[in-house]
């Protein structure tokens, strides 16, 4: 059965690109347009194996979203990859403290993302 990945990004084109890469690698994909929508989708989904999340988004940013996920009894073990244009070391430290497992700066190479996804899904 295909592993499910939740993609959270306010850019629909970026979501399309990530979805394309993941679907071609055999993953099932759920999309959300910001952190708040991401939490909603997470609650609605039967099972999510990994989250790929942007940092700077409207309504709720990625780091806040990760904080909420890690406080949730059901979702706290889901690994999160931050995929963002943000490259401030303080933000990276915040994401790590919030519970994210990896940080990937855009633009990214699809094989690079897939490698990170497979490592964390299998971990």
């Amino acid at each position, binding site marked *: 059965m295909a592993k499910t990945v939740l993609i959270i990004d306010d*850019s*629909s*084109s*970026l979501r399309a*690109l990530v979805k394309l890469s993941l679907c071609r690698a055999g993953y099932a994909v759920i999309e959300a347009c910001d952190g708040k929508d991401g939490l909603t989708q997470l609650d609605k989904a039967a099972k999510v194996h990994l989250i790929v999340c942007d940092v700077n988004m409207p309504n709720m940013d990625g780091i806040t979203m990760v904080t909420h996920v890690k406080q949730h009894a059901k979702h706290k073990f889901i690994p999160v990859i931050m995929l963002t244009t943000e490259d401030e070391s303080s933000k990276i430290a915040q994401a790590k403290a919030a519970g994210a497992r990896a*940080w990937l700066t855009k*633009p990214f190479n699809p094989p690079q993302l897939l490698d990170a996804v497979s490592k964390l899904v299998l971990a």
Partner: protein
Amino acid sequence: MTIHRRWLDAALPLFAVASAGLPLFHRVGVPEVMAAVGVAAASVWAAVRATRAASALAADGAWQGTDPEACAGPRPGDELPPLLRGILPVWREHIESVRSQTDAAVGDLVVNFSAITEQFEAAGFTGTSDAPTNDQASTLSLLTLSERELQPVIASMTRITDSKGALAASVHELSVITGELQTMASGVADIAAQTNMLAINAAIQAANAGEAGRGFAVIAKEIRRLSQASAQTANHITGRMANIMTIMRNTSAAAAQTAVSDQSAIELSGKVVEDVLGHVRALSAEAKTMRSKGNVIRSNIEALIVSLQFQDRVSQVISVIDKDMARLRDTIEGDAPLPCADEWLVDLQGCYTMKEQRRSNGSSASPAAASAARAVVFF
């Protein structure tokens, strides 16, 4: 007034610089639109500054040629906030429109380019590496198998023809032997005729011998009967051998004709098979070339899809500009005095998410490094 001017002198060119810097990310329509917005911002501010300069000169008494009252319009300090209040929402709408349109268009491009890649793969033009895919391997195996299997077919057909030739030779040899047998049967018939003649003479001599020759006459009669039977049998054999000879000749002729036809058919088959194998080899070479070229196209498309991530970076830049315009509008509408440009820019820098933005604000460094992918950081 001075604060307004100093602040806008710094802020509006920054919008223009940020917009003009966007083409460095990539070459799509958004940067041009953003550049146009930046240029418009600079133009508006240039007009405002000209009005302000004229007003200032008139107020300082340095304006000698014209009555200052005749040139005096609304004071720029009074007209600028309403102007910006009117313009900024429109600019923000344009920026949001550009951002959303680009996002949708780039999303479509990603989907379409990916569809092209998938079609290429479905057509068997590409593989994930230089090694062929399962389907391609099957095709190549089929080509190789065809070549490997067709060659023995020709050899087998040649062997069959050779066997038929040997069979024809055997039939011919049998025909010769049959001819010899027919000759021998004729010899037997001659011997029977002579034996019959001898039996007749023996019977005559037995009759001349009288009573003493009666037994010999019986023997002579039996010998004559046997010689006649031998003659009939020899004639019968000769007749049958003649039939066999006719059949043998027909068979031999048919075999010879078949051998010629078979040879001709085999030569034709060999030529056809060689032609087919030639096409198979050419097809195999073309398939390899197509796969190689398909891989190049696929690689280019994938690189293109990755490059389309520029839109997300552009969107980040636009979002910061949009938020800063909102902040400017809110500041103008508020009662608090405007901050100086340096203070404003410090706050603006706090909204930046990328090194390129930080570099473009007060730095001449190129933002070209934006296109390079960076390593994953695992925690």
